C-alpha cells in the first residue's frame, strides 16, 4: 500500500502522466486521414479563370511545383482587381475531386448505369470515335451534332471549324442571355454582338432583374462597380426591379418588388412618362433613331412608331401599376429620377444570365436607354468590341454544299421564326419529335444539359433517340453518366484556354489561361482530341484544322491581334473603366510571339471601347422599328416590329395552377456546367438547403392561405413535374409566387453532391421566343400542398 502511494506520489512529480496526457492530445491531431498540406517551396502561378465567362485574373499557390493549395485573385488584372468569387476560390476542389473521370470510359451496359463504364485507352477511344465519324461522313455528315457551353473561348470556334469542315450545321450552345442580347443588338444596331454596359461610370442604375450581386455573368466586375458606386462622395443610386428580394435588391437604395416577368411593362411605363413629358434626349432620338416616329415599310405601308405605341394609354402609370403590382406614384417617382439623372443607365438580365430573354423585352430596355441617349458614341451602352483574333476559315466549305439539302435541324421545320438564333431547344424538340434526318452522334462538351438545362427532360428524350452520345466532361456529371463514351478533358486549371471579352463589358479584353500544373490524370485536351480526329479523318477536315497542339492553335489566334496592331498588354493594376471610346491605346508588344509570351505569363490584352455604330442597319440609324422581324411577311399588326411588353403565357390554367414557380440563383450555388463544390455548400444558408432538403420560398400570405408554416414539408407540383421540399416562409417572396434555388439536385458525381435538394430545372417550363426561336424561362404555373 505504502509502495503504491509512494509510486503514485513519485509519478505525479515526474513528467510521465503529464507528458502522456499532452502527447495523446497531440497524437489525436495527427491521425493519418487528417489532411496535411505538403511542405516545401511555394510559388505563385498567374493564370486566368475559365470556370465561368467572367475572365478574372487568378494566381495559384503551388507547393514544390506540383501541388496546388490556393487560388486567389490577381491584383494586376483589371476585371477583378484581385478579388475572386466563391467558385474560383473552390476551383481546387474540382481539380482534386474524387468524381473526376481519370481515363476514357466506355459504357458496356445500359446508359446511365455507373457500373457499366469500362476503362479504355485513348487509342481505342479515338479509333472507335473516328470510325463512327467516318461512317457518318459517308452516310450524311449532318447527322453529327455538338452541344457546348463554351462561348467566349477559341474552343467555340474550333468546334465550329470542325463541324463546318465535317459538313454538319448542328452546333448548339447552352442557353445564355448573351444570345437574346445579341439578337436585340442585331435587330436594332445591325451588330451581332451583345450589348455592353459602362457600369463603372454610371451615375444612377436602374436594374431590371440584373443579378449584379447574385452571381451574374461577370460577378467580380459587378462587385467592383458596386464598390465604386458606394465609395464616391455622391454614391450612385441603385434601383433594383425584381420580384424576389435578392442580395442585389437588399443592397439597392430602392427595391421595387414587382410581379414576375413584368419588368418590361415597367420599362414601357417609364418610357411612356418620359415621352409624354418630353423628358428624353430628343436630339439623339431625332437624329439617330429610326422607328420612333411613325414610319413607312419597304412596301410603302405606313406603320406605327414607338412614340405612338408607348405614349398610348396602355402604358399609362395606372395601367402599368395593374400589370406590375407597383403603385402608380412610385412608377412616376422612378421615371422622374431616371429621366432627370444625367448618367442614368438601365441594365437588365435574367438571373445568372444563363437563360435567353424574351426578344421584345430586350428591345424595350434598349428603347428606354435610347430615350436616355445612352447609345451615343460616348454613352453608357455599347456593343462589345470584336477582338481581332485570326479567323478560322475552312479551306473548302463543305457545309455550303450540304446545307441546302440539310439545314440545321432546328430550322428544318416548316415554320421558323424571323430571326433564328442558337436553336438548342428547337434542335432537341426536333430530335424528340421525329427529325427530318437522324442525329447519329451527339458530342457534349463542357456542358451538363441533363441537369442544368431548364426543362431538361427535353434533352433526356432527345438523347434516347441519338445512337451515340459522347461526353468530353472532366467530371462524372449527370450528362457524362448518360453517355456511351467519356473522353475526359483536362480540368480547367490543367490546360490552355482563352477568354475572349468580358460579358457586358464595353472594353476589348483577351486573356490566355495557362495551365497552373501538369495534368494529374490520363486526360486529354478536347481541342487536341478534335485535332487528332480531324487528322484521322483526313481531307478537308484535316486541312482545316492543321494544328498539332492547342497551344499552337492559340498562338495562331493571337497572331491576328498582333497583325491588327491594336490594344495593349496590362501587367500592372490600372483603372480600365477610365479608358473611353476612341482613346488611344498604344501596343506594347513587338509581334505575335511576344504577345503570346506575355499572355501566357498571366497578363491580359485590352483595347478601348468602340461605342455603338448603326451603319449596318438598313436605315443607318438605331432601329426601334425592327424591319427584319417582319421581313418576307405581310404583317398586319404594326406592334410586331416594335419594342413592347409581350409576356409568353405559361401553360395550364390559373384556376388549376394558382401559383407561379420562379427559379432563382444565389452566388453560393454554381448552377451551370460545374456542380456546387463542398466549399460552396458550406456557404449556402440554412434557409436554402439543410442537409439534403431544399427550401422553396413563399410569402407569409401565401403560406397562411395554404396552412403552411416555416419548415413544413411540402410538395411542389408544376405543369412540368413535381418535387418535395421544405417551406421557407419569407417576406422576400412575392405573394402567389414560389421561388426555388437553381443548381441543386444532381444525380451524379459523389455522395457530397448527388441528391442534395431537387433540381429546379425539372420543374421549369420553357417557352420558345417567337422572334428568335430560343427557349425563354420566366415562370411556371404551380400548385403547393403540405405533405
Amino acid at each position, binding site marked *: 500500500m*505504502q509502495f503504491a*502511494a509512494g*509510486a*503514485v506520489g*513519485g509519478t505525479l512529480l*515526474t*513528467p510521465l502522466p503529464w507528458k502522456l496526457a499532452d*502527447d495523446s492530445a*497531440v*497524437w489525436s491531431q495527427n491521425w493519418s486521414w487528417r489532411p496535411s498540406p505538403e511542405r516545401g517551396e511555394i510559388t505563385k502561378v498567374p493564370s486566368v479563370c475559365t470556370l465561368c465567362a467572367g475572365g478574372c485574373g487568378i494566381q495559384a499557390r503551388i507547393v514544390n511545383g506540383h501541388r496546388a493549395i490556393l487560388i486567389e485573385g490577381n491584383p494586376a488584372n483589371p476585371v477583378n482587381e484581385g478579388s475572386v468569387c466563391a467558385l474560383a476560390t473552390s476551383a481546387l476542389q474540382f481539380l482534386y475531386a474524387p468524381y473526376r473521370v481519370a481515363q476514357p470510359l466506355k459504357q458496356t451496359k445500359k446508359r446511365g448505369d455507373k457500373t457499366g463504364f469500362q476503362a479504355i485507352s485513348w487509342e481505342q477511344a479515338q479509333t472507335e470515335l473516328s470510325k463512327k465519324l467516318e461512317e457518318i461522313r459517308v452516310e450524311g455528315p449532318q447527322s453529327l451534332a455538338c452541344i457546348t457551353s463554351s462561348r467566349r473561348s477559341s474552343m467555340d470556334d474550333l468546334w465550329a471549324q470542325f463541324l463546318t469542315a465535317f459538313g454538319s450545321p448542328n452546333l448548339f450552345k447552352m442557353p445564355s442571355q448573351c444570345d437574346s442580347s445579341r439578337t436585340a443588338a442585331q435587330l436594332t444596331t445591325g451588330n451581332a454582338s451583345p450589348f455592353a454596359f459602362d457600369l463603372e461610370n454610371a451615375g444612377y442604375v436602374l436594374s431590371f432583374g440584373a443579378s449584379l450581386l447574385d452571381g451574374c455573368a461577370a460577378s467580380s466586375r459587378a462587385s467592383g462597380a458596386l464598390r465604386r458606386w458606394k465609395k464616391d462622395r455622391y454614391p450612385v443610386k441603385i434601383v433594383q426591379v425584381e420580384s424576389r428580394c435578392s442580395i442585389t435588391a437588399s443592397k439597392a437604395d430602392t427595391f421595387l418588388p414587382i410581379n414576375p416577368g413584368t419588368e418590361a411593362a415597367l420599362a414601357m411605363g417609364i418610357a411612356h412618362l418620359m415621352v409624354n413629358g418630353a423628358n428624353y434626349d430628343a436630339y439623339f432620338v431625332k437624329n439617330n433613331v429610326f422607328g420612333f416616329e411613325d414610319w413607312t415599310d419597304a412596301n410603302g405601308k405606313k406603320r406605327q412608331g414607338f412614340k405612338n405605341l408607348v405614349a398610348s394609354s396602355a402604358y399609362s402609370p395606372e395601367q402599368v401599376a395593374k400589370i406590375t403590382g407597383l403603385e402608380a406614384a412610385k412608377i412616376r417617382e422612378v421615371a422622374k429620377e431616371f429621366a432627370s439623372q444625367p448618367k442614368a443607365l438601365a441594365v437588365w438580365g435574367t438571373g445568372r444570365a444563363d437563360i435567353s430573354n424574351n426578344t421584345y423585352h430586350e428591345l424595350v430596355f434598349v428603347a428606354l436607354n435610347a430615350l436616355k441617349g445612352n447609345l451615343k458614341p460616348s454613352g453608357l451602352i455599347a456593343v462589345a468590341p470584336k477582338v481581332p483574333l485570326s479567323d478560322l476559315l475552312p479551306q473548302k466549305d463543305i457545309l455550303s454544299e450540304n446545307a441546302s439539302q440539310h439545314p440545321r435541324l432546328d430550322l428544318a421545320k416548316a415554320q421558323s421564326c424571323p430571326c433564328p438564333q442558337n436553336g438548342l431547344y428547337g434542335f432537341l424538340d426536333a430530335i424528340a419529335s421525329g427529325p427530318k434526318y437522324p442525329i447519329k452522334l451527339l458530342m457534349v462538351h463542357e456542358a451538363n444539359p441533363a441537369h442544368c438545362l431548364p426543362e431538361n427532360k427535353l434533352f433526356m428524350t432527345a438523347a434516347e433517340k441519338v445512337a451515340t452520345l459522347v461526353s468530353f466532361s472532366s467530371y462524372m456529371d449527370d450528362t457524362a453518366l448518360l453517355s456511351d463514351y467519356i473522353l475526359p478533358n483536362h480540368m480547367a486549371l490543367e490546360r490552355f484556354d482563352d477568354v475572349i471579352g468580358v460579358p457586358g463589358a464595353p472594353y476589348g479584353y483577351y486573356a490566355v489561361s495557362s495551365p497552373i500544373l501538369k495534368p494529374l490524370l490520363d486526360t486529354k485536351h478536347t481541342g487536341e482530341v478534335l485535332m487528332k480526329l480531324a487528322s484521322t479523318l483526313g481531307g478537308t477536315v484535316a486541312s482545316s484544322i492543321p494544328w498539332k497542339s492547342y497551344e499552337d492553335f492559340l498562338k495562331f489566334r493571337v497572331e491576328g491581334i498582333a497583325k491588327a496592331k491594336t490594344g495593349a498588354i496590362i501587367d500592372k493594376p490600372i483603372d480600365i473603366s477610365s479608358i473611353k471610346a476612341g482613346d488611344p491605346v498604344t501596343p506594347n508588344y513587338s509581334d505575335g510571339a511576344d504577345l503570346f509570351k506575355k499572355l501566357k505569363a498571366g497578363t491580359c490584352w485590352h483595347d478601348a471601347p468602340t461605342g455603338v455604330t448603326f451603319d449596318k442597319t438598313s436605315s443607318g440609324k438605331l432601329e426601334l422599328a425592327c424591319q427584319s422581324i417582319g421581313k418576307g411577311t405581310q404583317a398586319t399588326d404594326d406592334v410586331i416590329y416594335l419594342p413592347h411588353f409581350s409576356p409568353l403565357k405559361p401553360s395550364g390554367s390559373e384556376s388549376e395552377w394558382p401559383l407561379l414557380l420562379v427559379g432563382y440563383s444565389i452566388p453560393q450555388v454554381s448552377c451551370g456546367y460545374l456542380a456546387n463544390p463542398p466549399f460552396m455548400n458550406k456557404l449556402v444558408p440554412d434557409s436554402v438547403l439543410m442537409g439534403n432538403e431544399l427550401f422553396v420560398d413563399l410569402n407569409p400570405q401565401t403560406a397562411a392561405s395554404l396552412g403552411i408554416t416555416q419548415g413544413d414539408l411540402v410538395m411542389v407540383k408544376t405543369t412540368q413535374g413535381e418535387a418535395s421540399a421544405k417551406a421557407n416562409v419569407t417576406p422576400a417572396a412575392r405573394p402567389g409566387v414560389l421561388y426555388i434555388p437553381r443548381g441543386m439536385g444532381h444525380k451524379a458525381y459523389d455522395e457530397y453532391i448527388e441528391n442534395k435538394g431537387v433540381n429546379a430545372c425539372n420543374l421549369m417550363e420553357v417557352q420558345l421566343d417567337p422572334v428568335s426561336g430560343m427557349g425563354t424561362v420566366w415562370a411556371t404555373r404551380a400548385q403547393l400542398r403540405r405533405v
Partner: protein
Amino acid sequence: MKEEKTSASGKVVGTLLFVLGFAGAMVLGWVVFPNLLYSQKVQPLNFSHAAHRDNDCDSCHKFRPDGTYAGIPKISNCKECHESAQGSSEAERILVEEYVAKDREIPWLVYARQPDNVFFSHAPHKGKQIECVRCHRDVAKEEKLPPLREDRITGYSMTTMEMTECEKCHAERGASNNCEVCHK
C-alpha cells in the same frame, strides 16, 4: 509493548516502501520514460556544421525572394561545392554517390518542425534581430549531427518548441500572444 514495537518497525518498513515506490517512480518517470518515449533516429548522412563555418547561417538556410523561409537547403545547394567528392569521409561518399550523382533530395530529419496548425514565419523574428540560437541549438562547433529523438506517440522531435516557450518570449518582448498570431 509488543504492539508498539510492531508498529514502530511497521512504520519504518512502510516509510521505506513509500520511499522505494517514490524513488522508483521518479527513476521511471525521469529516466526510463523519456528513453522509452523518444526513439533515436539517425540522419541519412552526417553533416558537419563546423566544417561549413566559413558561411553564416543565412547563406544555406536562406530566405526566398518572397520572404518565405527555405529551411533546409536543397541538394542543388550542396551541389555548388560537392559536385565531386571534397574528402574521403563516409558522409562525403554517401552525399556524392547517393544524392548528388542521382540528383535526389536528402531526406533530412528535421529537429524543429512545427505542427500544421502553427503558422510560424522566420522573417519577422529575423527582423527583430533574434539570434538563431535563441530557439535552435548552437551548431557553430558541431561536427556530428545528433540523432533525432522522435516522440513515439506524437511523431514530433523532442526539440520541437512548445507553445509555452513561444508565449514566454512573446510576453517578454511585448509581442502579441493572441491565438490568431500563430493559429491562422
